[in-house]
């Protein structure tokens, strides 16, 4: 439990000299004397061993993976995630891909709701915008619908860009209200969007009909063809899975970078005390708008990926139930944590499947033929509702908070604190 942060170990660098000349280090002479002392903040390896929290440089303290345990777990999780689809059935691969899409969308929502504190029920609207942008740019034209058959390498970035721009246009309205009013405003946006999508049949294929999605062609390669990579066969499901994984990792790291930077702190400040944040020099309008735009871009990309996974999209699927599912991802996973959001997404997407597998062993669940007290779909809905209530009241930091408690307990073990 040693916590020590030594001043950084670079005495007399040009940077430090320049900073001193500017008078930025005039507060005390103390830290300077430490920095230029013999050995300048280096600690012998023997003393570091077994003390993961003994940090010897600010850069190390601020690193994303600042303990060995985090580094090893991340590497292990990545390896498992990379290999998993080759050993799983097709439907499980698809399910995991869907979980990753929910994670990307959830990270976007968490940036807006968890970090910046702006509740949004309109997230599926931006997912729909992304999905339709990708479908129009990358899809083949139907009898009534548009399609330009472009490469995914073009369609996907634009599918993030279009919702971001729409988010930027909507933001001036949204940043003027907060709390419940913002929730209602974004709900209105969702309903407005649903009507537009139902009517605009060149874009969406129209109500109840829907349209096909972008062709799976990335950098000129047709992903629907099977590829052999050494001993592994990559078919379309696995290709899509790997695209989702790559994007999730990239977008997750980007979100973490935002969260630990100046911008992320501004988000949190606006969430916790907006007037104090303003007096600290944080521009409220700009900060909230940025959160809105970033979150919309994440949603758009997730929407585009979701359309690729399901293969056909109808205007009705971007509804309030999807926004509640996304809120469940954020709340169950953990507000204002990126890792938590990924866990939450996996939980929300995989729970129905787990229930399905368990159903034969639970006598009170009725099957397709009837019998039992409730159907599996009802049980699923009840469980989601109950879990959201339980997490909000008992562990607002979600599954990540639970994990954090376990970790803290074992860090101090065998002492109680």
């Amino acid at each position, binding site marked *: 439990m040693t916590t020590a942060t030594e001043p950084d170990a670079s005495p007399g660098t040009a940077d430090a000299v320049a900073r001193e000349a500017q008078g930025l280090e005039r507060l005390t002479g103390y830290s300077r004397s430490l920095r230029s002392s013999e050995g300048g903040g280096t600690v012998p390896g023997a003393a570091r061993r077994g003390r993961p929290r003994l940090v010897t440089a600010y850069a190390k303290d601020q690193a994303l993976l600042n303990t060995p345990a985090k580094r090893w777990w991340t590497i292990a999780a990545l390896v498992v995630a990379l290999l998993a689809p080759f050993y799983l059935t097709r439907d499980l691969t698809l399910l995991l891909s869907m979980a990753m899409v929910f994670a990307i969308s959830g990270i976007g929502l968490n940036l807006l709701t968890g970090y910046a504190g702006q509740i949004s029920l309109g997230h599926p609207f931006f997912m729909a915008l992304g999905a339709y942008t990708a479908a129009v740019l990358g899809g083949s034209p139907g009898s009534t619908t548009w399609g330009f058959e472009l490469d995914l390498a073009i369609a996907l970035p634009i599918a993030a860009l279009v919702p971001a721009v729409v988010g930027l246009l909507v933001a001036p309205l949204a940043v003027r209200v907060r709390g419940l009013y913002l929730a209602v405003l974004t709900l209105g946006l969702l309903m407005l969007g649903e009507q537009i999508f139902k009517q605009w049949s060149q874009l969406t294929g129209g109500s109840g009909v829907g349209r096909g999605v972008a062709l799976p062609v990335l950098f000129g390669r047709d992903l629907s063809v099977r590829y052999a990579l050494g001993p592994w066969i990559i078919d379309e499901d696995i290709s899509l899975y790997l695209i989702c994984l790559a994007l999730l990792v990239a977008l997750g790291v980007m979100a973490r970078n935002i969260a630990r930077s100046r911008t992320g702190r501004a988000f949190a*400040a606006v969430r916790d005390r907006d007037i104090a944040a303003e007096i600290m020099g944080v521009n409220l309008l700009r900060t909230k708008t940025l959160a809105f735009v970033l979150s919309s871009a994440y949603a758009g990309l997730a929407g585009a990926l979701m359309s690729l996974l399901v293969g056909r999209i109808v205007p009705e699927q971007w509804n309030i139930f999807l926004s509640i599912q996304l809120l469940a991802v954020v709340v169950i996973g953990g507000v204002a944590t990126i890792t938590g959001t990924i866990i939450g997404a996996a939980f929300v997407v995989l729970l129905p499947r787990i229930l399905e597998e368990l159903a034969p062993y639970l006598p009170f669940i009725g099957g397709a033929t009837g019998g039992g007290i409730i159907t599996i779909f009802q049980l699923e809905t009840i469980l989601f509702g109950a879990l959201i209530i339980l997490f909000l009241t008992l562990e607002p930091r979600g599954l990540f908070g639970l994990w954090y408690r376990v970790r803290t307990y074992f860090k101090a073990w065998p002492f109680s604190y």
Partner: protein
Amino acid sequence: MSGIPPLLQADDLTLRFGGNIALDKVSFEVAERELFAIIGPNGAGKTSTFNCISGVYRPQTGSIRLRGEELLGMRPDTVAAKGVARTFQNIELFDNLTVLENLLLGRHQHMGGSWWQAMAWLPSARRAELGARRDVENIIEFLDLTAVRQMPVGILPYGIKKRIELGRALAMDPVLLLLDEPVAGMNAEETEDMARFILDVRDQLRIAMIMVEHDMRLVMDLADRVMVIDFGQRIALGTPAQVQRDPAVIAAYLGGATDDVKGQFDHSEASS
């Protein structure tokens, strides 16, 4: 102070909430490096004056100029960018963030690097974070917050929170620091610590300060000049010694001097 232009000049500030006059033609100026105190009974308009300076309230008339530049009409974040920092009467820290993150928020406007650079964690963003961290560590040492730097602020005791607020304001590298009741609710020992920090800020960092405070001993010991307001009106302005003897102050602020209060004043005079 003649000849040297004042750091802050407030003229004829009038602030009304409906029919209620919070400030009535209040004027004062603060010199560079001065420790200026504002005292007055509850509801006299002390915090309202602060809120006018930092842009939270818009007074109906008057002007506030910082080194000649008009502050009225600016948003709070623009006022902050001009070099005005403040602490709050009721602590306004970001409870969910650590001490370090709270102090780093003070560096917000001085940090370079935009959001997209941070997203890709480009060298520029990394340098900005490290630079801010170094500045903040200096303040952590200055205010003796080393032991708590990684703790969330919400769980820390009151006296420490007050100190963190001072640190957050100092991190903004201000030219003018507004302290709203820096020792309210503190015991004698904590008050003494805070007084020492305030003196250090004045003597080492040479930052001008305006302090609102109810602890008369502290005000009379520390302040260069004192302004007394009551019901939104300025009733006295001068050195602590002048203000103490002002009959208007004794009548209005103290509600008639009792022996008890006189004793307190005499004591502070003796010790200063």
